[in-house]
């Protein structure tokens, strides 16, 4: 059994806390049931079901901390895991950055559970694979994709009387379609909390269209171009930049948000004034748990407002040291936009490049958040508001901090997830001037 009800979870956590003889005790119980199907070369390659549940207990004697986890929940196991955590705590050196367990929090529930997503079956997953494979087989195209879904719960409690319980669901779909001669490639991705908004048969058409449309790509000279970036394409750069939003790193002088002479750049206007980003655990499309990994209650948190930096992420220790209030760390990232779709942005562009996906983004210089990466699976030349022809992929060397100053237009945000980002995101398509491509890639 991996999914416990609120009452069952509370009973397990309370037993653990009661069993502890330490100065303080925090316990979490997390369970999930997930399924996935993977296919390539128009055939299913693997599929599986993962079911797991873990009780983690963290105790402290003074400033000495011990942590232990277990995946069985009878009374003897609960007692054993608490004793083991206490034993480790007694052996551990004092942690000079120790902070006491959090006080009782008031968690306002967020809508993270959708029954339909929780009820996804192996047959449904096979249907997704078939819906992608069938049209490709008929059209001399080759599909490779992955569909994964997950039903989970998270429960947290501590010896100061704090308690929270909530269930979550999620699904993620990606599919790459290639022409059978390998000259064209297209990609589609959907990440949703509610599977009823998902239709593989219609989604796959996006990848098919891009695969067919990207064959016979022409080479353009690398250089600075106006680009339209689909939400997935810019999400990779923006979410990478968020790793620089750590308050301690900034205060220590090792972030792009560090200030010359000491301190950080909170309050400074660093981006175009149309750039506004915030976190909101209760967002209708991108809801996340109302607490963070430490159990601190999340709040609606402005991160960037009209280009001004409003927020840095404080650990509880750093907040205490700097005299700041520690708030729950964001679980999502919502960028404010307008009403236009990617294609609306294309229509208003005289000359430019449409980037549909970015790939292998890595930090080149953390001083300026200079990132390098490539375009992939459909890059197109735009002239007079129309997609004229496919172009070869480019490598870029660009800083999102510069990119967000070169905004021409912002479209309507859509929900995206990136496997290299901890956030669920709402990111709009962006029109950006002077985006820096530094070389051509022959990859299709």
């Amino acid at each position, binding site marked *: 059994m991996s999914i416990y009800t609120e009452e069952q979870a509370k009973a397990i956590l309370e037993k653990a806390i009661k069993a502890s003889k330490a100065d303080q005790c925090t316990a979490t119980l997390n369970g999930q049931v997930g399924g*996935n199907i*993977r296919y*390539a*070369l*128009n055939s*299913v*390659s*693997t*599929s*599986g079901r*993962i079911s797991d549940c*873990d009780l*983690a207990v963290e105790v402290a004697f003074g400033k000495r*901390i011990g*942590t*232990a986890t277990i*995946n069985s929940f009878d009374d003897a196991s609960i007692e054993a895991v608490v004793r083991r955590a206490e034993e480790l705590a007694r*052996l*551990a050196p004092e*942690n000079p*950055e120790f902070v006491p367990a959090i006080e009782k929090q008031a968690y306002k529930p967020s809508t993270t559970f959708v029954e339909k997503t929780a009820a996804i079956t*192996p047959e449904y997953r*096979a249907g997704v694979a078939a819906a992608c494979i069938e049209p490709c087989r008929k059209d001399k195209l080759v599909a*490779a994709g*992955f569909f*994964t879904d997950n039903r989970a719960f998270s429960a947290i409690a501590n010896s100061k009387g704090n308690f929270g319980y909530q269930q979550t669901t999620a699904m993620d779909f*990606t599919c*790459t379609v*290639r022409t059978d001669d390998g000259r064209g490639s297209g*990609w589609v991705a959907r990440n949703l909390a509610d599977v009823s908004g998902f239709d593989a048969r219609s989604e796959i058409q996006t990848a098919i269209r891009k695969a067919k449309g990207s064959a016979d790509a022409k080479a353009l000279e690398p250089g600075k171009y106006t680009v339209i970036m689909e939400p997935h394409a810019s999400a990779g750069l923006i979410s990478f930049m968020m790793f620089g939003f750590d308050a*301690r790193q900034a205060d*220590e*002088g*090792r972030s*792009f948000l560090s200030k*010359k*002479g*000491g301190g950080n750049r909170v309050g400074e206007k660093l981006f175009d004034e149309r750039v506004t980003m915030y976190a909101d655990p209760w967002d209708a499309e991108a809801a996340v748990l109302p607490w963070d*990994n430490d159990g601190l209650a999340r709040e609606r948190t402005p991160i960037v407002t009209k280009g001004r930096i409003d927020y840095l992420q404080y650990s*509880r220790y750093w907040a205490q040291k700097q005299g700041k209030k520690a708030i729950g760390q964001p679980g999502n990232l919502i960028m404010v936009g307008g009403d236009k779709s990617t294609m609306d942005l294309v229509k208003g562009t005289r000359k430019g490049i449409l980037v549909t996906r970015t*790939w*292998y983004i*890595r*930090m080149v*210089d*953390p*001083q*300026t958040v*200079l990132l390098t*990466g490539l375009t992939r699976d459909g890059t197109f030349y735009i002239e007079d508001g129309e997609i004229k022809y496919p172009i070869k*992929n480019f*490598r870029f*060397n660009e800083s999102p901090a510069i990119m967000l100053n070169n905004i021409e237009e912002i479209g309507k945000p859509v929900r995206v997830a990136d*496997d*290299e980002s901890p956030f669920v995101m709402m990111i709009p398509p962006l029109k950006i001037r002077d985006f820096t491509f*530094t*070389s*051509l890639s*022959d*990859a299709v």
Partner: protein
Amino acid sequence: MDRRDFLKVTGVGLGSLLLPAMHGRVIAAEALVSKIDVATKKKFADIALNAAKSSGASYCDVRIGRYLRQFVITREDKVQNVVNTESTGIGIRVIANGTWGFAATSDLRPDAIASAAKEAVAIAKANSKIQAKPVELAPVKGVGEVSWSTPIVKNSMEVPIKDKVDLLLGVNAAAMQAGASFINSILFLVNEQKYFASTDGSYIDQDVHRIWAPMQVTAVDKQTGKFRIRAGLSAPRGMGFEYLDGRKEDKVELPGGAIVYRDSYDMKEDAIAAAKQAKEKLTATSVKPGKYDLMLDPSHLWLTIHESVGHPLELDRVLGYEANYAGTSFATLDKWREKFRYGSDKVTIVADKTQPGSLGAVGYDDEGVKTQKWDLIRDGVLVNYQVIRDQAHILGLKESQGCCYADSWSSVQFQRMANVSLQPGKDKLSPADMIKDIENGIYIVGDGSFSIDQQRYNAQFGGQLFYEIKNGKVTQPLEDVAYQMRTPEFWNSCVQVCDADDYRLGGSFFDGKGQPGQVSAVSHGSSTARFNGANVINTARSLG
């Protein structure tokens, strides 16, 4: 390592409850040195094999894995976390109706094992309805009951935590004393206790050890607001704690003064050097972009080999099985058939799952195939790929090369990279000799930023230390250096490789691939090599 996991481990201020979820359940240090006895594992394996066969499987393999990891994470004078994790369970893979099926469970009671085996068969039968072609498995002769262990001198898991903490805090203190503004240092220790059994008649017990001691030393100039990081020059290795002995005979001083390491690492010495070099980087000359001859140290070149040779020669990528995520490969089968010139005649690259001290060394892979060594590129010509049992027939091979690996009992094993290494030059040549003939070059030591496209053509690499070479001499340190390359042109521009005396291993502890993602550890060896006419860019930017 996937970036998100790395940030989880090294991130500042993360809750300690977050970490264990990555790698299994947290256990006491003493539990790291215990084992499940072989007779018990054989009993579990036979339950699964019998249940699978009686449910209609034509083939079954069973992996009983106990995956142990210890992390010791420090910064400056503080221990941020000490975590021991264990993940134990059984993964059962079957072929039924010509189709793969897989199921795994952490419940090692007989009924649960048999039930997982039956579930694997049921999944195989269900998927066979949309299977285009039946699985074709290269034969493997059963080896009976055998065992293999990483040849370690000192089991890392037996070294007391206090000694590890003292080591890292000593390293950190030395760096701070040498002028570092900050240091983060970590020990990652891994022990995979893996038991494999199959209907071919093999019962293979293996005990695999790995160690990695990365660090990052930061220098900050508060007045200018500039900061620079110099990462450690160690390599992750398939060794025990003896890797941290820092023996004198394993130290190599390079032209320009940097010290690099062969088969043991002096972490404190490197931390002191890193502190000084991080400070030097704050004021080093910013590179003038253009064409340069590159001299690449093995501490750097391993990553270029990994990305531009190791990955494109994985047969599953070539065929399209990784098209949706990691990508495909430019090194297609038609190029192989036509004897594609991958590099110059100086370039011979081997795959080797047996190399002592390497991360990829095991006795048998995760489908029971005895490991081996073979050429991928011979004198510049593409001659082979890396395959597993269900791919061997595609190349006309009679047997698998033993490249199958799963990162957990709960993961499906699939094709992963062998150790892939550039062979040393045949003529006597040291880095000091090599430098004498370079008029306008850059010498790069240590790995830095890396990125490559989904077919492995276009790549960009940074480094840790960069030295300008003018008229046969190292003249000054440089900064803001990255080179961009197109794989075949790059390897064809290789004009010299130093001899075997200069050969050293680098490697990746957390190479990511697959959906859901799995990590593997792999080494890459080389001697220093010269590449003519590379395109170097300047990476400095201004945020105003």
